C-alpha cells in the first residue's frame, strides 16, 4: 500500500541535477560559520541529493584555485590556498616624526662623530635613554664606530650611509656649521665665547673642519 505513494513522492520531488547540487554545496560551505559534515549537507539539501558526490565534484573544481575545499575534522570547509597566505597580510605604513630626544641625539652624533654616549649626554645635558640610541640604530641611521682610547674603552657612534642618503648629504662634512645655522636664522643666540667645542676637537680632524668658522 505504501510503496506506490513513496514512489510518487520521489518522482514528484526529483533530486536536482548534480551540477545544481554542487552549487548548493558551494553556497553552504561558503556561508556557514563552521565546517559542515556530509550528513549536515544532506539534511539541508533537497530530498534525494547526494552531498558526498557533489562535494567531490566541488573539491575537484577548486583544485589549484585561490580557494580550496578542505576537510576539517569531520566536516568540510573552504579555505584560501596556503601559498597565497602572504596576501592575507595588509601592511600599513605609519609615518611618525622622530622624537625630539632622538633628533637631538642624532644631530650630536652627526656633528661630533665618532662620539660616545657620555659625550652625547654631556652635550645634551640630560641622560640619553637606551631606547633613543636603539631606535637610531634600528633605523640604520647610526652605527657603532671604533672604541675610544680612553679608560673603559667606550664604544662610539657614527652616522651611516643610510643616514646621509635620507638627509640628502654626501658626507657628514656637508652638514652646515654653526655660522651657517646662524646665518639661516636657526641660531638666535651666540654661544658663550670660548666655551663649546674645545674638548671635542681633539677627537677628530673632521670636526675642526666643520666648525672652523666658529669663533
Amino acid at each position, binding site marked *: 500500500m505504501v510503496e506506490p505513494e513513496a514512489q510518487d513522492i520521489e518522482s514528484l520531488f526529483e533530486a536536482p541535477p548534480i551540477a545544481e547540487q554542487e552549487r548548493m554545496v558551494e553556497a553552504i560551505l561558503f556561508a556557514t560559520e563552521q565546517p559542515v559534515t556530509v550528513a549536515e549537507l544532506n539534511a539541508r539539501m533537497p530530498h534525494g541529493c547526494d552531498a558526498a558526490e557533489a562535494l567531490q565534484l566541488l573539491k575537484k573544481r577548486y583544485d589549484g584555485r585561490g580557494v580550496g575545499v578542505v576537510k576539517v575534522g569531520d566536516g568540510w570547509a*573552504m579555505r584560501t590556498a596556503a601559498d597565497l597566505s602572504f596576501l592575507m597580510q*595588509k601592511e600599513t605604513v605609519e609615518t611618525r616624526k622622530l622624537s625630539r630626544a632622538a633628533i637631538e641625539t642624532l644631530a650630536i652624533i652627526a656633528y661630533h662623530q665618532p662620539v660616545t654616549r657620555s659625550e652625547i649626554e654631556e652635550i645634551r645635558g640630560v641622560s640619553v635613554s637606551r631606547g633613543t640610541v636603539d631606535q637610531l640604530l634600528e633605523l640604520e641611521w647610526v652605527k657603532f664606530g671604533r672604541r675610544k682610547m680612553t679608560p673603559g674603552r667606550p664604544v662610539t657612534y657614527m652616522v651611516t650611509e643610510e643616514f646621509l642618503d635620507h638627509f640628502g648629504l654626501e658626507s657628514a662634512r656637508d652638514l652646515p656649521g*654653526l655660522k651657517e645655522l646662524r646665518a639661516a636664522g636657526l641660531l638666535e643666540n651666540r*654661544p658663550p665665547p670660548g666655551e663649546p667645542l674645545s674638548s671635542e676637537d681633539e677627537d677628530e680632524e673632521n670636526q675642526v673642519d666643520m666648525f672652523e668658522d666658529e669663533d
Partner: protein
Amino acid sequence: MPDGDAEFDDVDARLGAEALIVDVDGYEGPLDLLLTLSRTQKVDLRRISVLALAEQYLAFVNRAKTLRIELAADYLVMAAWLTFLKSRLLLPPDPSDEGPSGEELAAHLAFQLERLSAMRDAAAKLMARDQKGRDFFVRGIPEDVTRVRRVRYTATLLDLMQGYARLRTKEDFRPYSMERQNVMTLEQALERMRGLIGYAGDWTDLMSYLPDGWEADPKRRRSATASHFAASLELVKNGTIQIRQTESFSPIQIKALLNG
C-alpha cells in the same frame, strides 16, 4: 469595558468613534491621511480632484471634532489651509491678487501626494529586494587579514639642524636646567639599586648604597640620598624590597624580599 455606559447614543456611534480614534492614530500626519483619502478616487494622483479631497478631509476633521477626538495641531493647520485652498478654487481668480493661484496650490498638493506615494512604493520595492543575511550571504568564516603595522620614522635636515642649534645655544639661556654633575636622578638611583639589591639578603643601611664619590660633598650626598630613598620606596611598592627605620633619625634599612 463595563456594559451599559450610555455615553453614546447607540452602539454604532461608539464603535464608529473608536474606529476613528484608531484611524487617526494610524495616520502619519495629514499628508498620509490625504493620501489615503485620495485613493478612494481611484484615479491617477495627478488627476485627483483636490477640491473633493479637501472636502473629504474637512469632513473627516469635523467628524473627529464632534466626537471630541484630540487632533494634533498639524491636522488643524492642514484643515485651515485646505479651507483656504477650497475658497481659492471656488472663487473666480482676482487679478489684483498677488499670491499663487488656487490651481497652482492644488497642483502642488497633488505633487506632494504623488511624491509621497512614489516614495512608499520605492520603499516597498527596496524592502522586497534580496537582502544580505536573508537572501544572500557573506563568507561564514572570514579569514582575517592580519595587519602588519610598520612605523616609519622621518626627520628632515631642518629638524636635525634645528635640534642641534637648540642644543648648542642652550647654555645661553637655560631657565630651568640644573647643574647636572651634582644631581642624581631617581632613574639613576633606581637602576643602581636594581643591580645591587639582589645581594642584600640582610637589613642594610640605605646609605651604604650611595655610589663612590657621592658621600663626601654635601650637595652631592643630599641629591644621592634623596634619589636613593625615593628609589627604594619605588622598589618597596614593586614588592622587591622591604624598608624600615627603627626610630626617628635612625638609619633607614632595606632588605631584599626573596620570592618563593
